[in-house]
């Protein structure tokens, strides 16, 4: 269990974290999502007592981190895999951490075995590849067999095999009933790993909901329709009150399922040559949500005619206990031809409770 209450952090005049409140619960992988520079690492450092908050407070396992006795046995963290002395062996690195919390040396060898570094334990950690350093960091986080684990971008720079390993690893920890809080700037990665998402941008909370829900309500769906009788189809759709845009010899209809469009066309006796639902990519959804909050953003060329309207942050939805693992949602689709579909002008549709 990790709690943040009204957490605010200024570095000089730069506001890194802005009145952030959330709770991370046990038994699930909670993703901490945000663009680069959105305050994810800062938040984690504040939780772990490395930095002092300007305002607000955090609690881990019911206490402020500084008040924990033998903190490694309660909280494990991997914030940066490069926090190692290059000439110190992997085993010595873990040995000093273990000694500080009265963890027996046998446990050092145990965690080295868990992460698969036993054979290189005596080698200087500076010679490790990034993947090996990440594993060493994970070993450090596991040393005290803690109930709460924090990982900051653990898959950054890993090869596919390493990513798969870390992902499985985190899910297993959550399955053991531990609290797992993992940050990432990749929604597609979090979609595969996290049960719950806390999304921030520019240090502010954007969403706090289950991953399923977040993806469902933030990915824009549209239907592409082709017909030899487009003008007639246009009037039919217009009469039904559906929004659509023209795309070379086709219509892109938004806000209606393909069934409804097919039925309308059938009732009017219009032949259709294509009726294909298109769902936006996760990356698009993420950009829509955090678009306003990218700190070092470029002027986005793809935005077209107000296509990627920036939406006000929705109210955080209530917590939903994690369900069974989902199928991964469809990945990035090829970019739609023509202008991007317009978004509904209103804020995101309210999250259906208890879906």
């Amino acid at each position, binding site marked *: 269990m990790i709690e943040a209450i009204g957490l605010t952090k200024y570095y000089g005049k730069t506001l890194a974290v802005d009145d952030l409140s959330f709770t991370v619960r046990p038994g699930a992988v909670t993703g901490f999502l945000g663009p680069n520079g959105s305050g994810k690492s800062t938040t984690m450092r504040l939780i772990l007592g*490395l930095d002092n908050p300007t305002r607000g407070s955090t609690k881990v396992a019911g206490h402020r981190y500084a008040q924990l006795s033998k903190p490694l046995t309660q909280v494990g963290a991997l914030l940066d895999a*490069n*926090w190692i002395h290059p000439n110190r062996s992997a085993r010595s690195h873990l040995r000093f951490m273990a000694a500080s919390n009265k963890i027996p040396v046998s446990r050092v060898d145990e965690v080295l075995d868990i992460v698969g570094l036993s054979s290189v334990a005596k080698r200087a950690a500076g010679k490790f590849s990034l993947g090996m350093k990440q594993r060493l960091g994970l070993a450090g986080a596991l040393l005290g067999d803690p109930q709460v684990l924090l990982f900051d971008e653990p898959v950054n720079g890993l090869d596919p095999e390493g990513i798969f390993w870390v992902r499985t690893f985190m899910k297993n920890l959550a399955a053991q009933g531990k609290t797992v809080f993992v940050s990432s700037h990749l929604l597609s990665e979090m979609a595969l790993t996290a049960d719950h998402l806390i999304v921030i941008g520019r240090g502010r909370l954007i969403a706090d909901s289950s991953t399923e829900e977040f993806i469902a309500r933030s990915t824009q769906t549209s239907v592409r329709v082709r017909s030899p009788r487009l003008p007639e189809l246009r009037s039919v759709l217009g009469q039904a009150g559906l929004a659509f845009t023209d795309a070379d010899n086709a219509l892109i209809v938004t806000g209606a399922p393909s069934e409804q469009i097919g039925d309308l066309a059938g009732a009017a006796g219009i032949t259709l040559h294509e009726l294909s639902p298109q769902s936006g990519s996760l990356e698009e959804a993420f950009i829509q949500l955090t678009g306003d909050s990218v700190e070092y953003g470029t002027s986005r060329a793809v935005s077209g005619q107000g296509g990627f309207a920036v939406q006000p942050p929705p109210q955080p939805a209530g917590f939903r206990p994690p369900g069974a693992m989902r199928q991964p949602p469809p990945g990035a689709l090829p970019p739609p031809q023509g202008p991007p579909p317009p978004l509904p002008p209103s804020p995101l549709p309210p999250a259906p409770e208890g879906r």
Partner: protein
Amino acid sequence: MTMLNVERIKLFSTRSPYWCLASIVFAGFGFATLFALVDNGHAAIPYLILRGVNLGMSIFMVLAALAITTEYRFGTIRNTFLATPRRPAVLAAKTLLLALIGGVTGLVVSVGCFYLAKALAQDPPLPLELSSGDDWRQVAGYGALFAIAGVIAVSVGTIVRQSAGAIAIVLLWPLLFESLFTLIPTVGPKVGPWLPFTAADKWVSPTNSITDVFQSSSSGPTPVQGLLVFAGAAAVLWVVAVLVLQRRDA
């Protein structure tokens, strides 16, 4: 005890302390040999025999400063604080460890150098004996100086955090700053002898009349006062280091 052990593991699982300790031994015994052999040891009084040990003290300060600055350089200070969030305890353990290592090193090397010079010098100006308290002070006194120098270096390292900066300070302060300070008219000669490292040197300086020729001036602190000034400077720096450490983001 636990914390001391943690710092011991950290310090001796890297290579630099071994190199530094070896250099201290080399510098100490090198100078001792030199003074004992040149001109049949005609200049072999403890104060001069042990000039190499005094140089070793600078090397030891580099070791002590690096013990904390490398933690900042490589980020392991965060691992340390994650394991022990009570930062003053971390600094206390590190300081105590380096003071202990310094004390033992200073004592062993200075006494070792003394006996080496005693064995080699054929015609010392005074018999090389360790009998009176004053004799012991001039030789074994380096144990105390090393320990206090360790505290100063760890404190400076904690405040500055950068290896290059910390090393520059602990080397230039005694070697350059304090000797230049005495050149300032009127204030220099009065205050200069009371500056920490100059005062510390009094603790291992001879007081008897025969060797007065090696002393620049008879004013300034007595040996015990010199030691107290040095220890006081270390205490002040250490308190500043703790306050800074507690307040700062790691």
